[in-house]
C-alpha cells in the first residue's frame, strides 16, 4: 500500500510534473464537458478541424515569443466563426466546408513554420503536445480559462441543450439559437486551445470526444454523460501522465491511448450488459 502511494507522490517532487498534473486535471474536466455536446451534435470533425486550423496562430506566437495561448485563441475563434458562417450560409455541405477551411489553414501554418525555420520550435511538440514543458504561466492561464469556461457553460447550459436538441423549437421559444451555436463553437475552440499543451494538435480531438463517448455507452441521460465523462477524462489525463513518467513515453500519446483503452473497456462492458 505504502509503495503505491509512493508511486503516486514520487513524481510530484519535480515541480514540472506538479505543474503538468494540474493542467492535466483541468483539461480532463473541461474536455469531456464540452465533448458531450460535441458527440451529440456530431461535431467531432469540426473539433479536429479547429485544432488543426489554429496552427498559423500558434506558429506566429512562437515566432514572436509570446504565449501560444494568446496566438492560438484569436485564430481559433476567427476560424470557428468562419466555419460556422460558411456552414450556415453556403450551399457547400457541412463537412466539406469544414474540410476546406481546415486543410487551408493547416497548410498555411506549416508554410509559416518552414519560413520561420531554424527557431527553437519543434514540430513534434506542436503536433503531440509538450506537457512536461508546462510553465507556471501556462498553469495560471489554464486555471483562469477553466473558471471562465465552466461559468459560461453552467450559465448557458440549458439554452445550449435546447438548441442542440431542437434548433427550430428553440428559436420559436425565443432563444437566440444562431448566437448560441456560435457560442458553443467558441467554447469548443477555447477548450481545444487550452488542451494543445497537453495532447497537441493531432490528438486533441481524442481528448475531446473519447471520454464523453465512453461515458455515453455506460450512462444514458445527458447530465450523467457529462459527469462520468469528466471522471474518464481526468482518469485518462492523470494516468497517462504517470505512464509517461514511469515508462518514459511521450505524454500526449499516453494520455490519448489511456482514453482509447477506457473507451474499449466501456464498449466491451456495454456489449456484455446488452447480451
Amino acid at each position, binding site marked *: 500500500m505504502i509503495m503505491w502511494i509512493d508511486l503516486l507522490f514520487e513524481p510530484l517532487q519535480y515541480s514540472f510534473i506538479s505543474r503538468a498534473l494540474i493542467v492535466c486535471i483541468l483539461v480532463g474536466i473541461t474536455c469531456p464537458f464540452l465533448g458531450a455536446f460535441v458527440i*451529440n451534435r456530431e461535431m467531432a470533425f469540426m473539433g479536429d478541424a479547429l485544432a488543426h486550423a489554429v496552427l498559423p496562430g500558434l506558429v506566429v506566437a512562437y515566432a514572436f515569443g509570446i504565449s501560444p495561448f494568446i496566438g492560438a485563441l484569436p485564430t481559433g475563434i476567427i476560424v470557428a466563426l468562419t466555419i460556422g458562417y460558411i456552414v450556415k450560409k453556403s450551399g457547400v455541405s457541412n463537412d466539406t466546408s469544414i474540410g476546406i477551411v481546415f486543410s487551408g489553414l493547416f497548410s498555411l501554418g506549416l508554410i509559416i513554420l518552414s519560413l520561420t525555420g531554424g527557431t527553437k520550435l519543434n514540430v513534434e511538440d506542436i503536433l503531440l503536445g509538450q506537457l512536461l514543458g508546462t510553465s507556471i504561466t501556462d498553469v495560471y492561464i489554464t486555471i483562469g480559462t477553466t473558471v471562465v469556461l465552466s461559468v459560461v457553460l*453552467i450559465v448557458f447550459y440549458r439554452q445550449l441543450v435546447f438548441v*442542440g436538441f*431542437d434548433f427550430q*423549437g428553440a428559436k420559436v*421559444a425565443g432563444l437566440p439559437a444562431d448566437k448560441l451555436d456560435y457560442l458553443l463553437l467558441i467554447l469548443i475552440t477555447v477548450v481545444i486551445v487550452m488542451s494543445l499543451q497537453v495532447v497537441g494538435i493531432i490528438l486533441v480531438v481524442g481528448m475531446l470526444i473519447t471520454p464523453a463517448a465512453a461515458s455515453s455507452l455506460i450512462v444514458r441521460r445527458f447530465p450523467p454523460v457529462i459527469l462520468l465523462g469528466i471522471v474518464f477524462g481526468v482518469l485518462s489525463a492523470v494516468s497517462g501522465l504517470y505512464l509517461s513518467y514511469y515508462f518514459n513515453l511521450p505524454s500526449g500519446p499516453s494520455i490519448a491511448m489511456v482514453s482509447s483503452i477506457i473507451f474499449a473497456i466501456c464498449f466491451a462492458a456495454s456489449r456484455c450488459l446488452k447480451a
Partner: protein
Amino acid sequence: MSYSAPQCLNGCIQCDDVCVEFGNVLVLDEVSFSIPKGVLTGVVGPNGGGKSTLFNALVGLQPIAHGNILVNGLLPGASRGTISYVPQREMVNWRFPLSVKDVVSLGAINRGSIFRKYWFSDNGEVEEALRKVDMWHSKDDLVSNLSGGQRQRTFIARALTQEAEILLLDEAFSGVDISSQEGVIDVLRNLRDEGTTILMATHDLNNLSDRFDEVLCLNRHVCAHGNPESVFTEEVLTELYGSHGEMFAEHRIGHHDHVD
C-alpha cells in the same frame, strides 16, 4: 372607456395578402385568413404547398415579401415565446440523450425568473404538463426511445410549460399510428377547450371532420377555409391536388377504375 380594440388579440392569428418568395418561386401567394382564439385548425395541402413555410412565417423565421401577419396582435418576430412549435420529426436531433422530463422542462426556459432561464425548473409544472398529456409514467424515458405518438405528446407538454397561447404542429402525424393519433387529438381538444389556438399541418385527409374545428386548405394560396364538412368541394380538391383530386373524388363515390 371607449377605445378601438386591436383586430387581433391574444391567441389569434391573422394573415393579410402574405407572399413568400424563394428566389423566383412564389411559395405563398396572397395568403389571407384569420383564426380566432381557441380553435383547432388543420392545415392541409400537398407537399410543397407551403404549409411549413406558412408556419415559419407565422413564427418570424421566414421573412415575407409582401402582406401582413399579426400573431397575438404582434408582428411575428415579436410574438416568439408565446408560440410553441412542434417540429417535423426530421428537424429534431433525437441523438441528444434527454429524458421526457428534460425536454418538457425546457419549455419554461424563456419565462419567469432568471434562474429558471439558466438552470432550475419548476418540477410542479413539469409534472402537471406531463399528466395532462398522459406521459407522467414515462417521464424518465429517453425521448429517442419513444413512439411517434409519445414524442408528439412530449412536445405538447413542452408547449404547456412554455404557457404558449398558440401551438403549431408540423406534420404531427407522420410516423404515428392511427390509435396514437387519436390520443394526440384528444390532448389537443382539451387544450383547445382551455383556450389554446392550435394549427396542425397534415397531409392525411382521413377523419378531418372528426378531428378539426376548421380546415385551411393551402396550395400556395388559400383554396378554402372553414368547416371541414363543407369545404371539400370537388373544385377545392382539384385545386389542392390537381388530377389526384379527381382520384379522391372517384374514390369517395366508390369508383376504383382508373381515370383515363
